[in-house]
């Protein structure tokens, strides 16, 4: 395996235990809480006995450690190569003006080594200095929970003003766009960073709006008919959703998928892209949306 055990959760867990044990002999509950945070579900069954039975000879029976210095591991060449690669990505400038490079190793990959071939072409402009400044201000506002005042253009080009506390920045690889998410109603609480024309810290009395769950979930249930390897394509395509799949017979599968209400139109066209390999069963409203498009298509007399 190309990734050594140096990167393993167990090594990180033991490093965290040592850090604490250098300060004071570690107690069982402290050990378990570190394992819980850094390792996996059943790791406690491995780590505790390994320490108790002195198989990992790093800790004394009283919980102190033979290690004198806080554990520190230099960057591996692989890590430096990856960091060199992301340093060449234009999005790095959103975060910092100080590009870090490790000249002793090459980048793991360059822009010529891979293509995101189905990415939309109208992505955000990361070279725009104003965009980068707004990105950084919004990120700071999220970290420090203060309101910002933005001006933005809607799809029709009309200018809007809005004050809100940003909660999160969301990135879509398909759209190549960043969006700011906030817990308020306007624009569904989602603001395309590329449409924001100005952004500043809001100083003044800010009345927090009623929280609104922008990611309200809807469910669609459909059958997949496994012709032309449709099943694999469908399940991979919809893999990023919370979903359940069930086999009905040798070629028919039933998929229940949960999606955000705001993405309904996108879901309709994504399902249409599978043609007769998918039939939507419920809810009725979703079936109606599909039928409406098919009715219109019929009238096109193709």
């Amino acid at each position, binding site marked *: 395996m190309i990734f050594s*055990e140096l*990167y393993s959760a167990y090594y990180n867990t033991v490093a965290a235990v040592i850090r604490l044990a250098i300060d004071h002999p570690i107690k069982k509950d402290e050990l378990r809480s570190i394992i819980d945070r850094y390792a996996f579900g059943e790791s406690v069954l491995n780590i505790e006995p390994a320490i108790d039975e002195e198989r990992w000879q*790093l800790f004394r029976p009283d919980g102190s450690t033979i290690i004198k210095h806080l554990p520190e591991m230099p960057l591996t060449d692989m890590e430096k190569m990856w960091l060199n690669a992301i340093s060449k990505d234009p999005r790095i400038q959103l975060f910092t003006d100080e590009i870090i490079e490790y000249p002793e190793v090459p980048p793991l990959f360059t822009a010529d080594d891979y293509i995101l071939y189905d990415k939309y072409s109208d992505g955000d402009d990361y070279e725009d200095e104003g965009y980068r400044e707004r990105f950084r201000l919004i*990120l700071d506002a999220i*970290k420090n929970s203060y309101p910002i005042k933005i001006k933005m253009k809607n799809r029709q080009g009309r200018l809007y003003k809005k004050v809100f506390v940003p909660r*999160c920045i969301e990135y879509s690889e398909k759209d190549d766009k960043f969006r700011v998410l906030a817990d308020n109603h306007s624009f569904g609480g989602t603001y395309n960073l590329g449409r924001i024309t100005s952004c500043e810290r809001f100083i003044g009395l800010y009345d927090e709006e009623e929280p609104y769950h922008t990611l309200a979930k809807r469910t669609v249930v459909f059958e997949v008919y496994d012709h032309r390897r449709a099943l694999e394509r469908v399940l991979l395509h919809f893999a990023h959703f919370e979903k359940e799949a069930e086999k009905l017979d040798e070629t028919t599968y039933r998929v229940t998928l949960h999606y955000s209400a705001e993405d309904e139109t996108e879901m309709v066209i994504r399902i249409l892209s599978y043609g007769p390999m998918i039939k939507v069963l419920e809810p009725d409203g979703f079936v109606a949306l599909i039928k409406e498009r098919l009715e219109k*298509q019929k009238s096109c007399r193709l």
Partner: protein
Amino acid sequence: MRDFYVYGFKSRDEYTRKSSRSYDDERRRLESLLGEHMQFRQTPEGKNVFISIDSRLSHHNPLYKAWKAKSFTDGDITLHFILMDIFADNDEPLSLNEIADEIDIYLSGFSEPKTFDPSTIRKKLKEYALEGIIETEKVGKELRYKRAESLPFYDEDVLDVFSEVAPCGVIGSFLLDKKKSPNELFAFKHHYITSALDSDILCSLFMAMHDKCSVTLETKNRLEDTLMEDHVIPLQIMISVQSGREHLMAYIPKRNRIKPIRIDSIDKVKIEEVYPEYDDKREVLKKMIPNIWGVSTQGRSGDRMEHVEFTVHYEDNEKHILRRLEREKRCGTVEEIDKNTCRFSADVFDSTELVPWIRTFICRITDIHFSDRRIEETFKKDIEAMYRLYDMEGGEGS
């Protein structure tokens, strides 16, 4: 893990793929790594276990955990922390004997101290030198060792984003593990996380590409459950942000052609010798890219190039359709015919690759032509089949 996550409907009996790990072992491993995402469903055939993750709500790819569970021995972990501590105490490089003596002192307090013979220590130091965390220097005939310098690297914000969006993001996740606490400032939409499981393959391919080397690939045929070996020249990685699939575009010397190979079908990559014509083959691929819609370099028609065009109609208040076509056209061209109609056209190696995308315009396609008439017929028949699927046969719609 992929089967539990992507498919999720398979019962115990259906996990037939050859593996030294039994179904129960694999299920237990997954429960330990991804317990919070595991779900169960009772069926007449028994209990089905599956992983369900809404990647939009997960700030960090949970599948990276698969790479953080590599097994090691009691000696490996003991030696690691003692070695790092010894080096932290010494700025000057140490000889193997000095290191061995120090290790003995560290372990002397235990009732049954472990012993590490010099060859074990040397092997570990060599391994660490290859990883880059140990530096070596030769003094006379003696090799001396010291810890590599600890260098600064990007903060959590950068790592949070790039570990999710950059190729081989798992390495960013390893780096994030070194930071105090992960943030939840970023979320990711349309986020495919399955490729995490192919990180080692992708990493090896990038390394081979950097050195302009050929590779021997061990690939599996999912349908036949067989393994085969291929000697290929890795040229470029094609990543779909709309399906999460990753392909290697490779030159196959024995067939003298460039073709895509699914990365999730590759089991092993063995990097071979430098390929002298590497730059030439990459140039050939570069010239082909403007006619590749997805990844295919050969259509079923046998024609070198296939043509496809279709016309869509939109109302005055549906100008976003034109914008959609413009941003999604890839290598195609969009031509406005009048204020409510436009035509898309493209010349590609394999026009079947466009079919799913063209179907997303169902409700407004007024005309369509494929140079391969069979594809056109299938397209139209599929639309008829959709009408039947929703009991909309007969008539021409309202």
